[in-house]
């Protein structure tokens, strides 16, 4: 094993037919449209940024409080506050061409038809290279279980969206299930070009002073380092179940953390909460992945994918 010069390592990855300049993606909901972060950091360090999920109708979102620090994590229940697709297309979409990296559009919906409708209208926007389906948002009160809790409803959403869009489609799965493998397989069979996981883990806190739930929404989603072991396992298991690329996320703060996901089988990683602590986290993680490849004498970061996972089902680069 010879150590290769950093410049000779290929840092890129692929999500379906879209190539990203590096492995590191900003997770949905943590980067807005990139405009605010532009003040303190460089969006272009990211291989792609995922937009906050967009719904068909405008949504006010949940009441307050919406967030609470938790041990090594953050509890949130934003409730998909957003402008709705109409307003998004009119006011936000035109700014997408200014974003200094690739964009992944995220879609959330409350029926299969809504997903298909919003996704179709996102298809072909400037800079947008893929569409992620937030079938797993745990914060919004849906009739019955959320889509991603069930293989059939996950597949229904993916199938309906695939019929309407040309861009690669990413199904974003939830860890709040007994077994993530059948759901990942259902997404793949329905035509998903990639899956991403994990979305937030369901949790809550009680305000002991006022003897009531802390969050206005009662329960919320736990994110940050606390959930990393849960996320690594979900990626590990999904990587044994499907051949499509996986975007791994949940608690990544450092290159070492990201490497866990890549070795488990992730073809890209996403970072959410850690942006709040360290606005420069993307560059740090992207560089560390290149270094990890170099140290192992590999010519690409992609060659690391799945290399700790003997039952990795995806394609190996080496």
């Amino acid at each position, binding site marked *: 094993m010879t150590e290769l010069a950093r410049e000779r390592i290929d840092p890129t990855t692929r999500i379906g037919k879209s190539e990203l300049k590096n492995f590191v993606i900003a997770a949905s909901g943590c980067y807005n449209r990139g405009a605010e972060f532009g003040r303190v950091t460089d969006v272009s360090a990211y291989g792609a940024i995922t937009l906050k999920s967009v719904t068909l109708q405008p949504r006010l979102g949940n009441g307050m409080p919406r967030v609470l620090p938790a041990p090594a994590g953050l509890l949130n229940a934003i409730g998909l506050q957003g402008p709705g697709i109409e307003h998004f297309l009119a006011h936000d979409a035109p700014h997408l061409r200014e974003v200094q990296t690739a964009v992944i559009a995220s879609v959330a919906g409350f029926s299969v038809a809504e997903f298909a409708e919003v996704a179709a209208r996102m298809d072909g926007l400037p800079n947008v290279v893929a569409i992620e389906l937030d079938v797993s948002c745990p914060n919004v009160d849906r009739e019955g279980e959320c889509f991603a809790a069930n293989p059939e409803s996950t597949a229904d959403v993916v199938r309906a969206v695939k019929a309407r869009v040309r861009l690669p489609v990413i199904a974003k799965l939830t860890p709040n299930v007994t077994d993530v493998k059948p759901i990942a397989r259902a997404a793949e069979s329905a035509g998903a070009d990639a899956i991403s996981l994990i979305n937030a883990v369901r949790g809550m806190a009680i305000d002991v002073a006022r003897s009531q739930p802390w969050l206005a929404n009662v329960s919320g989603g736990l*994110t940050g380092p606390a959930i990393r072991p849960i996320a690594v396992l979900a990626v590990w298991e999904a990587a044994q179940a499907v051949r499509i690329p996986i975007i791994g996320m949940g608690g990544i703060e450092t290159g070492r953390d990201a490497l866990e996901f890549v070795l488990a089988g992730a073809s890209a990683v996403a970072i959410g909460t850690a942006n709040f602590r360290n606005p420069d986290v993307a560059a740090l993680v992207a560089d560390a992945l290149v270094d990890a490849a170099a140290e192992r004498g590999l010519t690409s970061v992609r060659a690391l994918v799945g290399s700790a996972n003997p039952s990795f089902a995806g394609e190996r680069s080496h």
Partner: protein
Amino acid sequence: MITRRECVAPGFWCVGFRAPRIAGAVRAAQYVAIDQPGRFAVRLPLGIWTAEGDEITVLFREWGERTAQLAHSDIGTAVDLIGPLGNDFTIPARGARATIVAGGLGVVPFWLLGKRLLAADVQTRVVLGARTAALLVGAAELRALGLNVELCTDDGTAGTRGSVLDALDSEPPADIVYGCGPPNMLRALSKRCVAANMPCEISMEETFGCSMGTCWGCVVPVRRGAKQGSGYPKAHAESRDFDYSRVCFDGTVYAAADLVWSA
């Protein structure tokens, strides 16, 4: 880097940082977002209390783990600060009369504001209240600036017995009122000023996630059409009509007339 650390009252701390860029740029009601070693997933937002030379200070209570850790950090510890963040108060014309109304740690934005108002020749009255004397902090520093500070406590253990609002009745209305403190106080102050048609600016607080305007975790309801709102269209399913504004990014200062307290 931490330059000083003082327990100003039981559980209340004043901590100084060497932060030349922030000290040079800061305006009243702005805050810093502090990253701390340890397993905290998000930064701690604290209002900037004083700024002199290369140094800023924060004045805070030991609330939970992050404030406790900061309170017990040694002088010389390196600290990662982002700031100054947030908007600031409107400064009226020379000769105007301003009233500052603060509850407890709501005093924090008013050292910088008081200094600024004095420099702008604004006649400034400061009313500082708390439940009880032990929770009154900051008065000495405001007086040292040359401000006239009236104290009041709910239980009469310091200053006049009664709320800061009672104190407002005792004098003729000001040209502008500034408020910061607990929600109940702010709501009452706000409603009173709006009813009296008196300009009033409020520095709001909410639990923060990102401190940078990206997570939408820190919102307060504002009147639809307020310039600090999201500008998103009304949600069809919502019966109540208001908009949300991010305290961390669009605030922390709001015109009382823009705030919606019933949401």
